[in-house]
């Protein structure tokens, strides 16, 4: 027994010696590379059909400018990236972290502020004025730019024109409407065609977020810190509309993404008000070509300042403060941060609508789309992008939203709205610190 134990101990010592020897070699290697010219950049992103595809297009474009740099694009699910970044940054070891990482705008501030000095400042690389206004809030801290704004989450309302016509409406009757009118149209559609107007997941408050941002409001104040739930006119109106939709029977409830996509691909819902990134999923059902169109987003009727444009999701590129940051920044500055021509390719090949203002005037953006009855969808979206109100998402969007999901449930269950909002405010106050 003693012998066995000593053998085991010895082997453990030996093994750990080996591993430490190995890492020493590794660090000295990468160190010497870092001093001269790093030749490899690692990128983390999610969604092979969208973000990864876009990164690969940029990679090809950059190969013509600087063929010495190899760019490794690693696919991770978004949740995995969030988890890996949190554990990596928190442990204090930068080993294993990528050079460039894609982060959702709603989450950006939570990383930038929770891990100061972990991201490389890009103020010299990104000219804030070149990009859509609302993208600068999430990607910068105290006036210092950290992210290269990437895709626009600009929203629109995808509609089945055939259902609409059966109910006695046309695409024109959807221009410049508010959500109240939208619900009325929904009732008519339901009555005439039996189809639901919209599909919603009660666990996902995306629609509420879209509604409040269209009025320049958010769950928190301009500082991104103080919860503003109780006296938030836009939020109150959005919740009332949400309940009205649920109560009027125009909603087809779904419980996840695949059911959400299934609802419109199978032709069960008449409209999909959401971000432009849904276009590939809408087009996935080729048999519905020519039946869809895109109308501007309805606005809030009672809240002043609400516009027909909003944002849902959207993400940006960030450079980690690790070896090779200069090369990574250089790559981004030559591609996503400035190349309007690249965005044309991105749009035609991948369907990306960027937020670089100069890109909007390109030829790809004004192309007609046969799937949408020849509508120039991209240029419509690009035009709406410019109208999106800039709000500060702050650090706590998802934490507050979890409180809000419960609030919405109890409101739908019959509780008074002001009480519901007050309770949510109280809870947010104690939890956000």
């Amino acid at each position: 027994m003693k012998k066995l134990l000593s053998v085991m101990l010895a082997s453990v010592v030996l093994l750990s010696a080996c591993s430490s020897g190995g890492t020493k070699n590794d660090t000295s290697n990468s160190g010497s590379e870092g001093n001269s010219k790093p030749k490899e950049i690692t990128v983390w992103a999610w969604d092979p059909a969208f973000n990864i595809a876009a990164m690969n297009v940029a990679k090809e474009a950059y190969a013509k400018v600087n063929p010495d740099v190899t760019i490794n694009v690693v696919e991770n699910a978004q949740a995995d990236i969030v988890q890996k970044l949190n554990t990596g940054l928190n442990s204090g070891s930068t080993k294993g972290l990528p050079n460039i990482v894609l982060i959702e705008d709603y989450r950006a501030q939570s990383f930038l502020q929770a891990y100061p000095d972990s991201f490389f400042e890009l103020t010299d690389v990104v000219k804030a004025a070149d990009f859509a206004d609302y993208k600068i809030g999430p990607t910068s801290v105290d006036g210092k730019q950290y992210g290269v704004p990437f895709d626009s989450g600009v929203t629109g309302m995808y509609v089945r024109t055939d259902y609409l016509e059966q109910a006695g409406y046309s695409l024109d009757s959807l221009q410049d409407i508010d959500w109240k009118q939208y619900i009325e149209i929904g009732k008519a559609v339901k009555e005439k065609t039996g189809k639901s107007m919209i599909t919603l997941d009660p666990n996902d408050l995306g629609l509420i977020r879209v509604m409040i941002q269209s009025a320049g409001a958010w769950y928190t104040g301009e500082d991104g810190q103080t919860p503003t739930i109780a006296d938030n006119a836009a939020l109150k109106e959005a919740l009332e509309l949400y309940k009205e939709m649920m109560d009027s029977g125009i909603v087809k409830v779904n419980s996840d993404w695949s059911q959400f996509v299934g609802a419109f691909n199978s032709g069960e819902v008449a409209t999909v008000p959401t971000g432009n990134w849904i276009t590939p999923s809408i087009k996935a059902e080729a048999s519905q070509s020519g039946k869809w169109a895109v109308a501007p987003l309805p606005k809030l009727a009672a809240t002043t300042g609400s516009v027909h444009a909003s944002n849902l999701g959207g993400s940006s590129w960030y450079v980690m403060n690790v070896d090779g940051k200069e090369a990574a920044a250089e790559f981004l500055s030559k591609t996503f941060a400035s190349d309007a021509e690249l965005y044309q390719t991105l749009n035609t090949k991948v369907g990306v609508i960027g937020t670089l203002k100069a890109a909007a005037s390109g030829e790809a953006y004004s192309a007609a789309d046969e799937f949408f009855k020849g509508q120039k969808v991209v240029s419509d979206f690009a035009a709406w992008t410019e109208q999106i109100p800039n709000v500060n998402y702050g650090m706590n969007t998802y934490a507050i939203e979890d409180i809000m999901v419960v609030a919405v449930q109890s409101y739908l269950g019959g509780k008074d709205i002001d009480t519901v909002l007050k309770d949510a405010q109280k809870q947010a106050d104690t939890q956000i610190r």
Partner: protein
Amino acid sequence: MISIFYFYPMIQALILSFKTGRGNNLHFTGFDNYIRLFSDTTFLTAVKNTFIYLIIQVPVMLVLALFIAVLLNDERLKFKGFFRTAIFLPTVTSLVAYSVVFKYMFGAEGIINKFLVNLHLISEPIQWITDPFWAKVTIIIAITWRFTGYNMIFYLSSLQNVDKSIYEAAHIDGANAFTQFFKITVPLLKPIILFTTITSTIGTLQLFDEVVNITKGGPGNATMSISQYIYNLSFEYTPNFGYAATVSYSIVVMVLILTLIQNKVGGDKR
């Protein structure tokens, strides 16, 4: 070795539970986190949900497991091996895979609803996933399906060790099957029943995969478990590892208390 890999992380987590802050900006705040626990409605909801699962699911599952074990122990039963395997099989499936399958089976247009509607047991499809009450029922059905077979194996193996002559003697004395079950089987299996109760309790307190994959904790936190809340605090929201460690330690305390109670109630009185 043991102290490095077991005790060091535990102590570290305990220290962490006295700190608060976002991401890397942690600082000591004493017992603030522990005080916060009691005013945190999300945490209290998660605890309540977990205990609902515990109080309803664990007894149902254990009684079911014991019942099946006795049936399968019957000498006269044919295809014993097949039935035992069939009931044990769920235990070896992947947690995530079965959760995803359950999610689709219990969807609004899933096979369960179609089946019930066709049998005219219900007129409208049940909103299994999106209704707060039915979502809990779905989770309970899912964990019962997966873990009954696991507990059954323990009962079955200890039933095999019970001397058949005891039952024969009881039979001659005129005890029917019912009396035999309660007077012989249950008392003899008592240590195993205690063991399965404790492991099932701990398992339920750590419930995570099913809730995350079937309902994501929804609708409106109606099915959220404590473990999922810990995950959310660490990775879903702006990370607050200090508070997450505090919540984790609350599970440790609950497991300790419940195990002590169960040992007192069910253990041998020495």
